[in-house]
């Protein structure tokens, strides 16, 4: 057996049945560390071949019953496992030596694992400790700031909402930019983790360079995130673990300086608009009138401006408090793990209920996981099953981020007048049909709260089976077969009494129910050859990968609901279409799509004496998308390393680890529209389609003209890195330089409209991301014994430069320009308010100040919404069971439009919406020096959206996570039946330093009225027995 095995496997191997004879007696002894002679608590002492075992106590002492001839196995993390045969003596002391090999972390490279020392690739492992007990419904959100180069942006506070995950910059303009996620060998939907329980995760490996990802060829171009869930151990008694916490979330603050009712009404009166000026529109809904009655008496409404006394008496209502709330979350997970001679199991049951801070948003989920492994007694055959079954119900109001004042609850909090109160709604609702206007925003939304529902129920099953058969010591066959099944049922209704149904006509009383089922199957089959001769170790692999995905979607939209019998999800109240009109026409819809990929590939890994290493992969990939154009593509990589610290000349240096790595390789991106396996399914074809046409006749439409040259986007990546550890690993880290070039970008090229089309997607252009990933950890104080004071700091970071190398045209507003970053803003520069007349002043293209720029004066600003720097800083303290962990995240180089603020200082919104008191600084007379233009400035609306007014820095430093808690030590727990007890207090997003004025600086969006992520505080408990 020439394979290097981890200490864990060694331990497993030790449990080979042996018969033993003799009289049992008590053996006692003390275990100390060979390095410093101090006692070692917590060492496992097992009588070999039995399930009998104990642990050393705080003084390193143990006591166990054994017979002469029995073998005691002593094992401890990072120590060499030692066996002692019981003889005549009843005292066996042991001085345990450090196991240098086992200090070496196991890392995942491609489809195999190796030790950190022998890895030639750039990868980072995140352990369960920094994932568990976090209140984020999606574990992806938790990874933020933990991995250098991994930028995670969560732009919604919806519980379990999707996060944008990007590794080392944005690698595509229109294609997928997110990494491939693999859970226990199963590739899964990268946008949907809301149903999965983060507490089940054991480790997450983030594979970054081409050396690691090229082998994932067709889907790994943007990095690969490999997730392992927890497993039982062989020969382990039943362990039961409980984790639970309760969280409270609230909206983060804003700095908009919004007006109170008195300021607002006074301002409205000054401007002659709105309630302050006596307008009645916002005093409730008007009665129904027959708008078809011809002729009318045109009587002006008697609109009298409010008096000072009336203004002073106006109420001040906090609409943020109404549409946002303090949300309560509870989360419970119970897990059971155990193992016998030839099998292990891990079972976990989880329940969580995560309330969103925005009204009507919620996520409830239930998870069951069963992980089983087994092996033949001769160890030649190993298998495993990882089965995860999940159900979630997600209440998700839609239209968030839109400008629909009758649908977006966030607008209700932002735009509603403080002088209106919810009580007015009671009066207003009866005469609902006439005269709604934007000033009725809160009332539309209060009505929607009562007359609208939208929720998604999801069943998600992720299952994978792996099996491995060793023909010989050096040749094995492997198969990993996996499936990801999602069944999402959406129920979405706008009820008959709703204002929306009333004002937009009868067909707006409606309910939609649809079912979206996606099944994906993935199978990797391989033959692997491993051999070591002398100082040479060689690994060879030959693989095939087969991927098939099926989507079946269907549903209906029923218009017309009888209020007496209607309930969401039930059809009793459906009203059929009548013979005299087409108000209640129902809709049915269905989609059937299939998708597939196939690849074969090989890998080579060579090591010489743990000093030099070389790895190479080559892969042939086919995608169904390019069946009629360029179906097959080849991707490859090479990687090498030099473990300098293992050279003789490094003996005695401060470096206990110094490794130089380099890799170069290519990977393909076939998800060219970034919308998953079923998108862009017929880009190569000329197509017509049938649909409803003029006067509802069936019609034929020209749908598209195909692109016969469609092919893969290719990302080539160079990586040069160094890993180091000095002073006995007290200071350790890694630095990587990378350069990723995406070619054949799938992007829109402009067509002359004379062709009947204005754009077509084609493979054109090149994008480069280059930068540095770094990670540095330093133990300021190390604990010599458990309970000693320890303190460590760490920093992870990424600096990324994004540059468009080639585009269809040199300057493409919206995308960028050649030589600039992706998404660079192309804007007219706003310089301020002209003190002479209150008009807005701009710079023209030649830097001259003007009030009347043209679109020719738009310039490239060098700014975009993507970060230049991002990462995190951690600080950890431990003392006598108490622990404190803090993680600060930083993002620099983001520029965003604050369209919410733009609305608050827009004088034209007077009488329509809430305003910021900043508008009171508006220019009124010549000589005024101010940042708010004259309310009558002629150009105040002329350049909206093409000037850089309201473009602000989105940089921030945020206390992303803080945790304080206590681990009960073994002495206290003794006799309680518990083996582990821990209490903690956590905070997420507690403090943010930023110049951004809105609710959530993290949102990566230039719209407004988005659902901000909350600040969350939790208390929790973890018990083991």
């Amino acid at each position, binding site marked *: 057996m020439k394979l290097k095995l981890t200490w864990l496997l060694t331990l497993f191997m030790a449990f080979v049945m042996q018969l033993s004879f003799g009289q049992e007696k008590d053996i006692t002894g003390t275990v100390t560390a060979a390095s410093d002679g101090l006692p070692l608590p917590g060492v496992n002492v097992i009588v070999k071949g039995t399930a009998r075992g104990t642990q050393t106590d705080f003084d390193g002492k143990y006591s166990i019953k054994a017979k002469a001839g029995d073998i005691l196995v002593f094992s401890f993390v990072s120590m060499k496992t030692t066996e002692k045969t019981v003889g005549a003596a009843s005292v066996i002391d042991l001085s345990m030596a450090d196991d240098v090999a086992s200090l070496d972390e196991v890392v995942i490279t491609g489809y195999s694992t190796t030790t950190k020392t022998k890895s030639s690739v750039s990868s980072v492992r995140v352990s369960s400790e920094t994932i568990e007990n976090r209140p984020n419904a999606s574990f992806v959100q938790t990874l933020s700031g933990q991995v250098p180069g991994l930028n995670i942006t969560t732009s919604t506070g919806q519980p379990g909402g999707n996060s944008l995950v990007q590794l080392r910059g944005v690698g595509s303009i229109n294609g997928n930019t997110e990494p491939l996620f693999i859970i226990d060998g199963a590739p899964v939907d990268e946008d949907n983790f809301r149903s999965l329980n983060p507490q089940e995760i054991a480790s997450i490996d983030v594979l970054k360079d081409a050396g690691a990802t090229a082998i994932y060829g067709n889907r790994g171009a943007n990095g690969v995130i490999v997730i392992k869930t927890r497993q039982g151990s062989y020969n382990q008694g039943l362990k039961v673990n409980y984790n639970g916490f309760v969280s409270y979330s609230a909206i983060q603050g804003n700095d908009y300086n919004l007006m109170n009712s008195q300021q607002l009404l006074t301002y409205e009166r000054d401007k*002659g*608009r709105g309630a302050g000026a006596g*307008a009645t529109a916002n005093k409730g809904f008007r009665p129904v009138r027959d*708008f078809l009655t011809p*002729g009318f008496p*045109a*009587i002006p409404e008697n609109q009298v*401006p409010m008096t000072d006394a009336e203004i002073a008496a106006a109420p001040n209502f906090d609409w943020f408090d109404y549409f946002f709330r303090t949300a309560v979350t509870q989360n419970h997970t119970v897990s059971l793990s155990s193992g016998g001679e030839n099998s292990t199991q891990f079972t976990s049951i989880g329940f969580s209920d995560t309330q969103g801070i925005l009204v009507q948003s919620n996520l409830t989920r239930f998870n069951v996981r069963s992980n089983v492994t087994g092996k033949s007694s001769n160890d030649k055959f190993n298998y495993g099953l990882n089965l995860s079954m999940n159900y979630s119900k997600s209440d998700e109001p839609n239209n968030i981020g839109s*400008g629909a004042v009758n649908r977006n609850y966030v607008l209700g909090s932002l735009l509603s007048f403080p002088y209106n109160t919810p009580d007015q709604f009671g009066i207003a609702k009866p005469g609902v049909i*006439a*005269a*709604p*206007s*934007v000033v009725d925003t809160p009332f539309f939304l209060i009505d929607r709260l009562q007359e609208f529902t939208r929720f998604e129920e999801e069943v998600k099953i992720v299952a994978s089976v792996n099996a491995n058969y060793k023909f*010989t010591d050096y040749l094995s*066959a492997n198969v990993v077969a996996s499936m990801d099944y999602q069944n999402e049922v959406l129920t979405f209704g706008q009820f008959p009494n709703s204002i929306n149904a009333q*004002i937009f006509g*009868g*067909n707006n009383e409606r309910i939609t129910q649809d079912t979206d089922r996606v099944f994906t199957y993935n199978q990797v*089959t*391989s*033959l692997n050859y491993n051999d070591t001769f002398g100082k040479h170790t060689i690994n060879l692999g030959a693989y*095939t990968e087969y991927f*098939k995905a099926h989507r079946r979607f269907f549903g209906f939209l029923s218009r017309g609901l009888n209020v007496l019998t209607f309930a969401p999800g039930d059809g009793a109240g459906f009203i059929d279409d009548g013979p005299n*009109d087409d*108000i209640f026409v129902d809709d049915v819809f269905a989609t059937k799509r*299939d998708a*597939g*990929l*196939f690849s*074969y590939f090989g890998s080579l890994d060579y090591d010489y004496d743990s000093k030099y290493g070389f790895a190479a992969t080559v892969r042939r990939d*086919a995608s*169904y998308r390019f*069946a009629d154009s360029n179906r097959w593509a080849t991707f490859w990589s090479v990687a090498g390393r030099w473990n300098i610290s293992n050279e003789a000349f490094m003996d005695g240096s401060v470096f206990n680890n110094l490794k130089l790595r380099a890799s170069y390789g290519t990977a393909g991106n076939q998800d060219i529209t970034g919308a998953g396996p079923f998108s862009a399914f*017929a880009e190569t*074809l000329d197509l*017509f*389609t049938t*649909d*409803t*046409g*003029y006067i509802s*006749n069936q*019609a*034929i439409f*020209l*749908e598209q003209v195909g692109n016969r040259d469609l092919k893969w986007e290719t990302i080539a990546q160079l990586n040069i890195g160094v890993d180091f550890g000095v002073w006995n690993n007290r200071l350790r880290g890694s630095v990587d330089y990378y350069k990723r070039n995406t070619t054949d970008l799938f992007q829109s090229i402009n067509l*002359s*409209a*004379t*062709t*009947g089309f204005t*754009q077509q997607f084609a493979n054109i252009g090149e994008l480069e991301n280059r930068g540095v990933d770094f990670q540095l950890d330093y133990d300021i104080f190390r604990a010599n014994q458990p309970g000693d004071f320890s303190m460590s700091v760490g920093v992870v970071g990424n600096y990324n430069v994004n540059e468009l190398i080639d585009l269809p045209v040199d300057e493409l507003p919206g995308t960028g320009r050649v030589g600039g970053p992706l998404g660079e803003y192309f804007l007219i520069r706003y310089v301020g308010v002209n003190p002479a007349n209150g008009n807005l002043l701009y710079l023209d293209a030649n830097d001259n100040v003007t009030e009347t720029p043209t*679109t020719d004066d738009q310039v490239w600003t060098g700014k975009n919404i993507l970060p230049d720097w991002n990462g995190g800083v951690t600080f950890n303290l431990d003392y006598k069971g108490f622990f404190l962990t803090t993680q600060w995240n930083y993002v620099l180089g983001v520029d965003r439009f604050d369209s919410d603020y733009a609305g608050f200082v827009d004088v034209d*919104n007077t009488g*329509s919406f809430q305003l910021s008191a900043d508008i009171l600084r508006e220019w009124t007379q010549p000589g005024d020096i101010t940042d708010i233009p004259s309310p*009558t400035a*002629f150009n105040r*609306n*002329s350049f909206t959206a093409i000037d850089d007014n309201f473009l602000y820095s989105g940089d921030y430093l945020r206390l992303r996570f803080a945790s304080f808690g206590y681990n009960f030590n073994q002495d206290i727990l003794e006799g309680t039946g518990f083996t582990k007890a821990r209490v903690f207090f956590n905070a997420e997003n507690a403090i943010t330093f930023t110049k951004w004025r809105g609710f959530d600086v993290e949102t990566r969006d230039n719209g407004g009225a988005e659902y901000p992520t909350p600040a969350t505080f939790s208390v929790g408990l973890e018990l083991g027995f």
Partner: protein
Amino acid sequence: MMKKIKYLIMSLVAVLLVNCNDAIDIRQVGLLDPVNAFRTVDDLEAGLFGLYSRNGGIPNTFGFDITPEIALSSNFCDEISIGAGTGGQGFALYDFVLNPTSAASSNFWIRNLSQNNRATVLLEAAQVIEVDPADQARFNQLLGEIHTIRAYANFELLNMYSVDVRNDASLGIPVVDFVPPLTFQPLRNTVGEGWDYINSDIAAAEGLLGPATSTDRISIDVVRALKARTLATRGQYGEALTLANNLLASYPIADRTAHRDMFLDNSDEGIIFKLQRVRNGPFDRQGATGSVNAGGWPGAVYTFADILSDSYFEMDRKVFNMLDPNDVRFDINVSPASTIDPNYMTNPNSFATDKIIPAKYPGSENQPLMNDLKVFRSAEMLLIAAEARVGANNDLAGAAQLIKQLRDARFGSSQPLPVYNSAQEAYGAILDERRVEFLFEGHRYRDLKRLGVAGNRGIDRDLTDCNRQSGACTLAANDFRFTLPIPLSEINANPAIGEQQNPGY
């Protein structure tokens, strides 16, 4: 050992020879190939229904729609003011901001060129359809409708993007009478070549179309109405007069009741051609509110929910002042929810007290704001005839007689006969009458462009309205903005045409 080798071989086979074709040879269901699309006359009719119709799921499929004309005329010219229900809609265009990135610039260009392309695709497909003699008349009718739609699109293009449609040698539009490859990047043809293309389609349609069977399909009368409009636009008034007179004989001016019913879609009197808008049809939607892109209910150009609510666009106070309450056009255009402040000029609160809500599109079929789009009405023929009498024969009295005829019908009583002392005065009066008659119907922009200089009229807004915004109150009809700029999207794709951008942009 043998067993091991067997396993080994089996595994190798499993690894390397797994059948992969079902994963990478996937033909999705539900796709219609070109060879299967148009094989019968029925298919061609389905194609025509597609040409009439927008389709939100397919890029560049706009259908036959005049809401962009309605939105441009209202928002840019002097039909509306910013209303009490404003959410910022249309501010830039109201301030006369018109540039190559404006919706107006791209909409008229892309939409009409797309219609031209889709029509040509159908005409080419029709060439290989084998037609049963019994079906020949229907086949011809379909071809005639396609030619007419193509002519309408190219006429709109030529009129909007040419500085002077009466100068045949000046720059016109790209004439594309074939299905070009996607790499096609043409330059502009001359105005004369544009007219030749339009006239060939009109001539073809005249030879193919049958008599009118319903007002919502193109008939021989519709293409003649289009021809009358093109002739007036080109200044060929003699022929325009004959055509207009002929059509007026078939489509008389409706009485007051029928006229009001017509705008409620309860009557077809006075309509030569309308685009039918039905519940749950492709145009039964709000569209882009307050934007030239529109594309849905015509009433949504002006307001959010219905004509009883505060609207983002109100009627320009100057037009309102031109409306006599005894004129049926007052009832048709002014919502009963309007509030009139006689002191609007002096009342600082007039934004709130003086609210004139447009009512031309109250809704139909129980759908607020959705109405049929009246493309050609007999009143237009009457006013073309009036214009042509002046233009062709300087017949000022004849023009006055026609104006009186129209007013008599609208008031339901005999109105005084106007007196015009010059052609300019007559043209000005015709423009003023058109401003009222076709209010919110999408004529104003092209009327001012065609006749504004001759009639001494331009954009002329009520001062209270425009000064409340940025003070954009008047614009002469010879301003460069009465020709739309070629959109930036076209110049990006077809840089050479950027050198032929219209003056002023």
